């Protein structure tokens, strides 16, 4: 097969995958929209009654319900909402009376920064564990890493969060265990990406404060993922270490560590990368409870408040945004796989 043909075949495969996946993604998002809309309408407790001061009359409630369109039939309400969503209007929050989109986009950067920091930590921890385990495979150190991986994987992020709070918030208080930033600090930021902006503005004092707040929740999210990365990467590294080109490299005079880093790592990393993409979308789902645990002002924390306050438009907006992030991440992973795969087959 000539290079030209190969590229065309690759392109066709990519387009086909893209088309089918885009279609299923739309079905998925529509399903999420329908389910969240109708499920939360069943929530007992009238959100309007909760907003009004005690002693409000029936007429007051009816008037405000009409204002938010809550007096119309459910199907009509859904139609109004979904039409708005398609035009970029997610409605108005009942508790804060601000547009849902503004609220959600205001909190999204905090959650994204947390998730990405968790991902970086997970890759660093898991990668180190895999490399050490491969370097000393068969020995006590590999056994210790296997056990640590097993424990890290069995216990979910929520419990790791509590353990970290006890260890580094109480016993040895080196990190903050609450909030995103020290409230008394003066923030010069124009966007909500505090961490990134503090780096760009070279306000490293603020970066340090932000990291000291983020590190514990990010680590809690990262530990299970780090274990998954460590296990899979170690397994594929060990398989790679038996391949002929690695043996050949040994005869050239390289030591074991160099052989792992130079010859094995790049080839062993590919299957891990695909997995990390999928697992990252699960990690983003985990931010909900971790943000609550660490009182971190992100999307998840806002979501729980919205449920407690029966703020229906806000809940709908947040769930839909989470679903969008999840499906998009999976789409990207699938595409990446389709692009990398023909190369792998030829390689």
């Amino acid at each position: 097969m000539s290079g030209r043909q190969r590229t065309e075949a690759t392109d066709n495969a990519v387009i086909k995958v893209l088309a089918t996946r885009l279609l299923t993604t739309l079905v998925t998002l529509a399903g999420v929209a329908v389910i969240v809309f109708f499920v939360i309408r069943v929530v007992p407790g009238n959100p309007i009654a909760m907003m009004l001061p005690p002693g409000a009359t029936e007429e007051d409630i009816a008037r405000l319900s009409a204002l938010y369109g809550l007096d119309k039939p459910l199907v009509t309400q859904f139609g109004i909402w979904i039409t708005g969503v398609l035009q970029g209007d997610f409605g108005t929050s009942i508790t804060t009376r601000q547009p849902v989109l503004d609220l959600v986009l205001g909190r999204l950067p905090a959650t994204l920064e947390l998730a990405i920091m968790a991902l970086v930590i997970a890759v660093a921890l898991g990668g180190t564990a895999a490399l050490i385990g491969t370097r000393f495979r068969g020995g006590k150190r590999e056994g210790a890493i296997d056990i640590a991986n097993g424990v890290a994987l069995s216990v979910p992020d929520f419990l790791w969060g509590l353990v970290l709070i006890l260890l580094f918030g109480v016993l040895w208080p080196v990190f903050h265990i609450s909030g995103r930033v020290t409230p008394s600090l003066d923030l010069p930021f124009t966007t909500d990406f505090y961490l990134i902006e503090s780096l760009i503005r070279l306000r490293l004092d603020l970066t340090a404060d932000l990291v000291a707040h983020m590190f514990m929740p990010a680590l809690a999210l990262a530990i299970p993922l780090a274990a998954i990365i460590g296990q899979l990467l170690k397994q594929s590294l060990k398989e790679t270490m038996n391949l002929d080109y690695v043996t050949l490299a040994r005869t050239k005079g390289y030591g074991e560590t160099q052989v792992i880093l130079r010859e094995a790592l790049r080839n062993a990393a590919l299957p891990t990368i695909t997995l990390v993409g999928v697992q990252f979308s699960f990690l983003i789902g985990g931010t909900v409870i971790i943000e609550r645990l660490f009182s971190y002002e992100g999307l998840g924390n806002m979501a729980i408040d919205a449920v407690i306050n029966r703020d229906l438009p806000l809940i709908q907006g947040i769930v839909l945004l989470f679903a969008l992030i999840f499906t998009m991440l999976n789409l990207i992973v699938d595409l990446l796989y389709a692009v990398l795969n023909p190369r792998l087959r030829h390689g």
Partner: protein
Amino acid sequence: MSYLSIRNLSVRLKGGPPLLRRVSLDVGPGEVRGLVGESGAGKSMIGKAVLGILPPSVEVTGGEILLGGTDLLGLPPKDRRRRIGATCALIPQDPLTALNPSHRIEPQITDRLVNILGWTRAAARARARDLLEEVHLPDPERVLRAYPHELSGGMRQRILIASAFAAEPKLIVADEPTTALDVTVQKQILKLIREMQARHGTALVFVTHDLGVVSKVCQHLSVLYAGMVVEDARVADFFAAPRHAYSAALLAATPKYTDPDAGLNPVPDAVIDAVRAEVAAFDAAKARRGAA
């Protein structure tokens, strides 16, 4: 004075049966020695022991591997690795798996020169280009930039040969270098290895199960059975009159190119029984020594 001298090398599976039984052989400078035997006879194991790439499940239990007068087994691991990297090379069996799929060709030829022997990149690159011409690959510049999957099996084996000769090693181990190739390509590769060996004056250990190949390439040969050298001879003498019954049977079992209709003559059971008895006697003698 031989360049590689293996003295009574014994290797076994950890906690398991012996794989090499007091193997001794010599390879002089510029000399080619064939290692012949059935699969599992331990011929590849000898090459791996010399190059320090024995699998972790295997251990050396005795003997010496003298390379230029120094016992490799007595050196600390790092020094041994360096010495092997600087003076020896491997031509592997399967060219399809012996090149790293994620690196281009150039670093796979030059990395030993640059990283182990301290050449400059430019010098190493020029050397790689010369070598590719020497192994008759057209358009060396393009090949250097290519990834392995863009090249055929025969081309990749030529690259591996070029890479093996890159640092002008004193000794090359060729581990069944033509087994994985098409029959048409096999002859060309064999010719190329002989040509390169002669030009560079490299000592060569040629591992094969094919006596026909030995007759074309080698000057000396060792016949192995169950990790034991049953015959060590000059190639001319061997093909005229093999001394050991097993090697004679092996020779008789090799299909003749001149007479393809002659059919196969498998090694007779009686000969196998005799050589097995020899191995058993060896093990028994060793056990007695161990007990004494």
